[in-house]
């Protein structure tokens, strides 16, 4: 057996057991303070709309609200229900002594609440009401989805993004050097740059990054969202239509500005 810590050189001899340390990015799901049923209902809506966002990813259950409500929770059942939805719960954070004991009984690891956590919303619900004045906020944002901040990097796309294609980058920016067709969808945790016409949907900052922006050479988009706040093409001022623009959040409102 050998144990390798990051800064240590491994001995040359082969070993039957090798232990390494690595840190992983996990998604944090906050359990509802009142009611598990409400939590699973929201979760099922989320899974239907954006299955890839959660499936197969390691998940930490946040027990802050449950502890505050001082209610008991059958974690074995919750874990079973998550697994039947093909989610992978690995541990809990922020519980009281009773909850932590229950978590250990359910075979879950114990994590410290991370300081770099940001509230995430994986984009607006595509049909859940059209935002006009207030630019509707995605229901998922309220459900307390959270994800650890991702490293800054970019996904470069050089062919036209066709109707029906969905490009997802949950670890940084998306840069498209051509046009994005009507009915196509770009989803990024960071910024979105389109060096052609943007005719489809662009969802930037989907993990809750309110600093994310959308840039395009010609605004013809069906929908633009930043951190869950969105506008549809009807909401855009004709003065910015088909112009090079940037879209950003200012005090919870989606601003579109020409960049000519």
């Amino acid at each position: 057996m050998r144990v390798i810590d990051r800064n240590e050189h491994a001995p040359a001899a082969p070993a039957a057991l090798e232990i390494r340390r690595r840190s992983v990015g996990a998604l944090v799901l906050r359990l509802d303070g009142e009611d598990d049923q409400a939590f699973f209902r929201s979760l099922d809506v989320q899974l239907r709309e954006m299955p890839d966002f959660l499936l197969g990813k390691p998940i930490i259950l946040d027990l802050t609200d449950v502890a505050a409500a001082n209610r008991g929770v059958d974690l074995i059942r919750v874990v079973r229900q998550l697994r039947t939805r093909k989610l992978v719960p690995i541990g809990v954070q922020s519980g009281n002594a009773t909850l932590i004991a229950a978590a250990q009984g359910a075979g879950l690891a114990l994590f410290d609440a991370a300081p770099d956590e940001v509230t995430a919303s994986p984009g607006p619900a595509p049909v859940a009401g059209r935002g006009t004045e207030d630019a509707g906020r995605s229901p998922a944002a309220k459900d307390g989805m959270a994800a650890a901040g991702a490293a800054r990097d970019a996904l470069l796309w050089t062919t036209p993004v066709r109707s029906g294609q969905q490009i997802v980058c949950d670890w940084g920016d998306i840069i498209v050097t051509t046009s994005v067709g009507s009915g196509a969808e770009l989803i990024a945790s960071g910024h979105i740059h389109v060096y052609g016409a943007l005719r489809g949907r662009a969802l930037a900052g989907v993990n809750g990054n309110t600093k994310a922006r959308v840039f395009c050479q010609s605004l013809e988009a069906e929908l633009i969202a930043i951190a869950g706040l969105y506008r549809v093409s009807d909401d855009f001022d004709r003065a910015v239509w088909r112009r090079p623009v940037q879209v950003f959040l200012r005090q919870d409102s989606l601003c579109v500005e020409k960049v000519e």
Partner: protein
Amino acid sequence: MAKIIVITSGKGGVGKTTTTAALGAGLAARGHRTVIIDFDVGLRNLDMILGCERRVVFDFINVINGEAKLHQALIKDKRLDTLHILPTSQTRDKDALTTEGVESVLDQLRGDFDFILCDSPAGIERGAHMAMYFADEAVVVANPEVSSVRDCDRILGLLDSKTRKVEREQERLKQYLLLTRFDPGRVNKGEMLRIEDILEILAIDLLGVIPESESVLKASNLGMPVTLDNKSNAGKAYLDAVSRLLGEQLEHRFLAPERRGLLQRLMGRTA
């Protein structure tokens, strides 16, 4: 080895089968051994457009299921001995198209022909997927109309991801746009999309622009591919498209409204 070309569109009724018949007959008339396969299982039309519906005994699905030999199902055109048709079944559905079955039929045809044209059904489901999966090149047919152009964009996305060439070689297949039912007069009135706008949206090469023409409907009803009637503008435009498919560089024709004499104007749009 034959080159496999899929003729597809996503949207129905834009002229896929008419185009397949016209391009197939055009290639065959230039001396290339050509076979046209109907992938629209259950809605068999290609045989009628080519005027051989009364000679169908066995079909594509019989061959896939091993109920008939390929040479029993292939129909040789009476006008062009370089043109063959593999009709499909009217009684079965798209599930009868298995990947292995389609691949085996195409492999058998590859050695004996120069071009294999696959006439895709509308939609993006199994039939359309099977028609495009083994293709080397694609001709996407559209009308100058917004929904047709968007469906076209969708199909182009599938051609970039759901074909064997892309899966195996990580290489995009060559894609052409063919615009049908183009009416320059209506474009000038703003009732139809302009060619430049369509090309800007789709960003692919233009294979041809077929003017709206009565000769197309007439040819279909007579079972005579429009390229065999090279007096009509539509027939000429399709023959130009055939030349471009063969690598020739030609100017696009029939893009401006036709000048009409006083008498024709008085007679209205019947000419």
